[in-house]
């Protein structure tokens, strides 16, 4: 079993997955931020591969990607940094990026370097499920890479079940029909969607992301799933303070309020 699924299975509840963009705020910050997150009690790390055209991302992650690319981040450097990080932490690192990055880098080369660097899972929001199934599912599973597909409130029940079946990591529940980085309260409509999916008997464990930005939204998400993903609000926190103490304060504000 891949490390992502194993970690969620072991913890079952209140799994906290924290996202940050590789190369932001500084080029070489990955190992330190990763250690800081582990020490603060985070369960999974989602590392964004900065992209020029991140379609699903709001302003905060777009800007962090621009900064990272300007800092000189590229995939080779990213893998070097991840390798350093995984030598000192045990929590799984998941890479999140857009399909074009993998195609252009070369899928086999990408997977080789990811495996060598100790990457445990992948999220590729614009990779169609049928293409994954036809071309990559076997390779990913052979390499113990946990794959996570997204669903949204507009996803049909049939697709939810299919995404759950194909997600060897976790099912990524996008909390609302929107891009990342919204900071509203969770609405009744969203709760109804969480509740519906919670009762569907989906194969994979579920984490809720998009708009999870404080303790209140984290607690709500945890009531309806195995845990939650925090991204944009952590990027904003890193911009103010990227030290381990700063990271600890942020994570504690999510976990404990």
């Amino acid at each position: 079993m891949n490390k992502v699924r194993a970690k969620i299975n072991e913890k079952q509840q209140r799994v906290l997955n924290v996202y940050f963009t590789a190369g932001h705020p500084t080029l070489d910050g990955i190992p330190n931020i990763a250690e800081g997150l582990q020490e603060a009690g985070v369960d999974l790390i989602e590392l964004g591969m900065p992209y020029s055209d991140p379609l699903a991302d709001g302003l905060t992650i777009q800007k962090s990607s621009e900064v990272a690319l300007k800092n000189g981040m590229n995939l080779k450097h990213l893998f070097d940094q991840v390798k350093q990080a995984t030598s000192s932490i045990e929590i799984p690192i998941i890479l999140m990026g857009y399909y074009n990055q993998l195609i252009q880098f070369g899928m086999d080369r990408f997977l080789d370097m990811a495996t060598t660097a100790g990457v445990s899972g992948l999220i590729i929001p614009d990779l169609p499920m049928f293409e994954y199934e036809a071309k990559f599912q076997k390779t990913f599973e052979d390499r113990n890479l946990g794959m996570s597909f997204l669903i949204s409130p507009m996803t049909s029940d049939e697709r939810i079940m299919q995404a759950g079946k194909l997600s060897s990591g976790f099912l990524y529940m996008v909390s609302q029909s929107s891009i990342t980085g919204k900071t509203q309260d969770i609405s009744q409509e969203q709760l109804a969607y969480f509740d519906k999916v919670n009762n569907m008997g989906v194969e994979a464990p579920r984490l809720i992301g998009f708009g999870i930005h404080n303790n209140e939204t984290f607690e709500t998400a945890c009531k309806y799933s195995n845990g939650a993903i925090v991204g944009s609000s952590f990027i904003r926190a890193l911009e103010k303070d990227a030290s381990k103490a700063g990271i600890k304060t942020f994570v504690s504000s999510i976990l404990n309020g």
Partner: protein
Amino acid sequence: MSEVKTRVESDLISLKHPDERGYYGEFGGAYIPEMLFANVEQLRLIYQEVIDDPAFQAEYKSLLRDFVGRPSPLYLAKRLSEIYGTNVWLKREDLNHTGAHKINNTVGQILIAKRLGKKRIIAETGAGQHGVATATVCALMGLECFVYMGAVDIERQAPNVARMNMLGATVIPAESGSKTLKDATNEAIRDWINNAETTHYIIGSAIGPHPYPDMVTQLQAIVSEEISYQLTEQTGKEHPDYVVACVGGGSNAAGAFYHFLDDKRVKLILAEAAGKGIDSGHSAATSILGSKGIIHGCMTLLMQDPDGQIIEPYSLSAGLDYPGIGPLHANLITSGRAKVYAATDDEAMQAVFELSKVEGIIPALETAHALAILSRIGATKDEHVVVCLSGRGDKDLNTYMNYENIKDQVH
């Protein structure tokens, strides 16, 4: 889907339409985040049925005739023909209402949006022609309209921004990336993710996730449908020898080529923007500088670095300043069905002044790229070359007036 049936029956592979999943050969498809899937799927399931519905066709054709002013003339440019030693025909899309071919597509898509019950329309625009065409049909139908436009383009296409405002649209500047068409498209897609249920996104070019490239192509196909019978009426000839069109994303080329795609007697020529020169580092010549990858939801040819980061293109013309090309075109190019030539800013400008002086027609800067390559295609005296005169030059007057001054600057 009668086209698909014909294809199977005759065992011929038509270049006109993609397969069920939206692929033209190895290009096309739908590479989109899940948040867009429901919308794109809704469109995929109904677009062909709607387009084939006689009631839709009647409304579409009547608007094209009475509102847009179709058919647009096919005009033999005699003095230009003398210069190039062949028969040059201009398909006068510049005479359409709003000044370009873009309105053919927006009229069709607004009717589709109405059938979907959408109340809010968004669009991206480069030169502003598609934005104006979208704002126009929204005014016509009384729908709310938001147009995303790169901040750089807003500056260089001020008259079109003013037009959109007068037509009641809200123009939203795209401040990310290179602040041009690519970024306006990203912003429009993000808006669509945020407003998926209420909004229809009218993409202006033959790009985007399936079914957009096919839908836009079919809504622009009126151009080649008219060329086909107009040329026969005027010359008795069954088909042109060449059809030439400029290409950014590729909607005017798709429309001008459509009825000739499977007729190998017709040579298809694309003119792309070389900017300051193909090797200058300031170019938008996608077919030469590009490689296979994903942009705006489809697999196609695009300009990118070895890490798959999309490269910001350059062309003096805002409408060709795009790092990708439609998947239909990518397939035509890689299969050898279409030939591509690149024209620089300077060559395009010379073509603008030439057409203005010898034919009394001031073309759009985008269109001028198609005129600029006429000497290179090898057409002979008895052959007939149709150039899609995709737009008029009013919007570019500032550029034309200041060209000598701005020539040495790069955005």
